């Protein structure tokens, strides 16, 4: 019964939404890239770069929002590199993506070491503080979970709405979806496939970086090595889980985060009888099951991972 009670605690849901926030940003970023036809495996490294860029801006005396913008710009730069190699040059998206992840991660660690050669324990910054929304935050459980979060969490939810709106309600979004489905259709309508895909990869990468920045600026308050810890790879799975739809992907992110928050609490409950690694594994095992159940029927963008070369025979 205690195991069930966890689900009714406001603190559990607060944690779940907090854990979900960086995943939401990065999942939306990956979703935009893939909708345009580019698999961005640079996500893990770009998140690390974003985490560091945001943190170091604030550490150096910058404003928190400036940190977010710097993180986004750094992400967009890695997106530019990824896009240049995969879109006009048409290189393998797998190889480039892994390369970007290795490059961005190593470059980040290197820069961290150069910037702070002497520290042993990671220095802290003053992070984003929770910003209760008047009235709404008074609602029991839901209010605390959704309306007593930091501004970055609100931004994550706004991002989902904006991505969904742009993809389904605007000419630009139609061009992005068409570029991932049949780039020849985009070309035939007089739109440049290259610019659409480059733009999508850059914007997507910027969102991934903001997802990383959330970790240093709204969760852990400091930067340390290995802090992304596979979150990027989870987001790639979440995109598939969400069948490339923003709303379903959001749901997936929250679900995964809830598993994660739940397992931590379950660990405390069992008091060391069950090895804690089992619990750590749980969200991942459940995501695999969910993926199997949800995505066997998913229709993926048909031109995903297919480079488009104009005038090719």
């Amino acid at each position: 019964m205690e195991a069930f009670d966890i689900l009714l605690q406001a603190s559990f849901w607060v944690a779940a939404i907090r854990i979900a926030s960086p995943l939401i940003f990065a999942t939306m970023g990956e979703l935009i890239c893939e909708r345009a036809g580019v698999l961005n495996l640079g996500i893990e490294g770009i998140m690390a770069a974003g985490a560091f860029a945001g943190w170091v801006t604030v550490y150096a005396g910058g404003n928190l929002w400036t940190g977010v913008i710097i993180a986004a710009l750094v992400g967009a730069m890695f997106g530019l590199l990824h896009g240049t190699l995969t879109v006009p040059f048409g290189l393998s998206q797998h190889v480039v993506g892994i390369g970007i992840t290795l490059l961005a991660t190593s470059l980040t660690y290197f820069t961290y070491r150069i910037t702070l050669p002497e520290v042993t324990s990671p220095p802290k910054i003053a992070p984003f503080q929770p910003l209760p929304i008047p009235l709404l935050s008074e609602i029991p459980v839901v209010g605390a979970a959704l309306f007593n979060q930091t501004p970055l969490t609100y931004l994550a939810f706004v991002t989902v709405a904006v991505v969904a709106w742009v993809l389904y309600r605007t000419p630009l979004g139609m061009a992005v979806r068409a570029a991932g489905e049949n780039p020849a259709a985009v070309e035939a309508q007089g739109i440049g496939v290259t610019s659409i895909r480059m733009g999508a990869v850059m914007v997507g990468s910027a969102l991934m970086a903001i997802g990383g920045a959330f970790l240093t600026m709204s969760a852990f308050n400091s930067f340390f090595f290995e802090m992304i810890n596979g979150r990027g790879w989870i987001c790639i799975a979440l995109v598939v889980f969400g069948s490339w739809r923003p709303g379903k992907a959001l749901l997936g992110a929250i679900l995964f985060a809830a598993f994660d928050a739940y397992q931590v609490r379950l660990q405390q409950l069992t008091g060391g009888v069950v090895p804690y690694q089992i619990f750590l594994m749980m969200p991942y095992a459940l995501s695999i099951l969910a993926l199997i159940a949800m995505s066997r029927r998913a229709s993926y963008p048909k031109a995903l991972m297919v480079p488009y070369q104009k005038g090719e025979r």
Partner: protein
Amino acid sequence: MSGFNRDMPSPEESFENAPVVLRLSGVTKRFGSLTANDAISFSVRRGEIVALLGENGAGKTTLMNILFGHYVADEGTVEAFGKELPAGDPRAALNAGIGMVHQHFTLAENMSVLENIVLGTESMWLIRFDHRAARTRIGKLANDFGLAVDPDKRVAALSVGERQRVEILKALYRDARVLILDEPTAVLTPNETEALFRTLKILVAEGLSIIFISHKLNEVMAVSDRVLVLRGGRLVGESVTSRTTRAELAQLMVGREIPPPSVAPATVGGPILTFNEVSTARTGTGTPLDKVSFSLNAGEITGLAGVSGNGQAALAALLSGIERPMSGSITIGGKPVANWSPQAALSSGIGRIPEDRHAIGTIVDMSVTENAISERYRTRFSRHGFLDWSAARSFAEEIIRDYDVKCPSPETRIRLLSGGNMQKLILGRALDSDPSIILANQPTRGLDVGAVSYVHQRLLQARERGAAILLISEDLDEILALADRIVVISKGRLSAPSARGERSVREIGELMAGHQDAALELAGAGNAA
């Protein structure tokens, strides 16, 4: 088609004074050492249908892709309405009023008809767009030009004919004044083709101009006002349609006279292979077979007509041994087959000519020799578990000689062979062992006329020696020319067979479109086996 009503004044009178809307001057395009278009010049006038006739590989599609800005020409210019178009810019071509319906449709299947049509017509930076106005306009266009299609349907759910209508609507929505149609009838049933031709006639009556690309003489004669003939990248002839003949055009197109395949009456033996209520499982996107019963008889070519994607692939996969029946049974030589597999198909005496030379028929990065032995490398060309290269090589040389495969050496990678030579190698591999059953799936698709006639001769020879042949083709003319007996496939079901000449093209077209008449079906159930 040939029955189409041409109630127009004689074309030379009506178009002489019409303004020129499009002019190509000296357009040349090279791909490596191949000159796909060689100094081509012509013009199109307002209100006329110009047919661009030529074989596969004559350079028709390349030319149109230059016109539309997909390719950049090495030399020459394109002028629309008196203004030169910048090279390699589809947007400029669109804005100049040129619309193109590609052979392979350029539609995004995950989006609605409406979204596909308005894509690229609105500013990218709008935060929303006016669905209602777009819907009204599409409805009006569809109504005016006989292009009925539901704007809210997803393209993935549309038939091929509907998709083509969407492509035409896309061009009209952008106020195209010149419409280029690249092999528009290749995917249509005869009846859909007629509907398309009606639409084209309405369009030119409204003052549009149309360039109709085709390699089908009948259609060119039926629909065009003027014909341009392309051969080997060159413009070799131009004529007002009413002043030329099929034979004249055919000769121009091919460069020499081609005798029609002379088909002697068949001496039909008994059934060699019989399908009894065979159904296949639904795999991927293909249409599965639904209780198919038929038999292939010795010394007879059975032609399978049908619109692409109606179960031909499933039938071919089944006969090649790639798929197994889900229910029903297959009998070969009177014995029911068990443990059906590609190896079982081969050892039952089935010679296989697959549909896609590049993807299934060959392994393009391996040599001619390796491909020649690929069906029997573990049996005939192995000794004590090692490949017998000398036997393999002499076999390859034998095929190269007997089947006239032009290649530098047996070590040449298949990728470097032309389509015709690749097909001859496959033909040799399949026919060398004198199979009693031959599956010929689109055996001449994309080949030039010489190679087509070679393939046809070989199939007829195999028939003479008593092989049972299943000829699957989307080219109805090919089936009409070769098959002794015709069955039509539609939605995974077969019509009753009909002897040569028994059904009219129109009736076959009806069957292809899936209009099974109940009486016919009943009769079929009785005769099929």
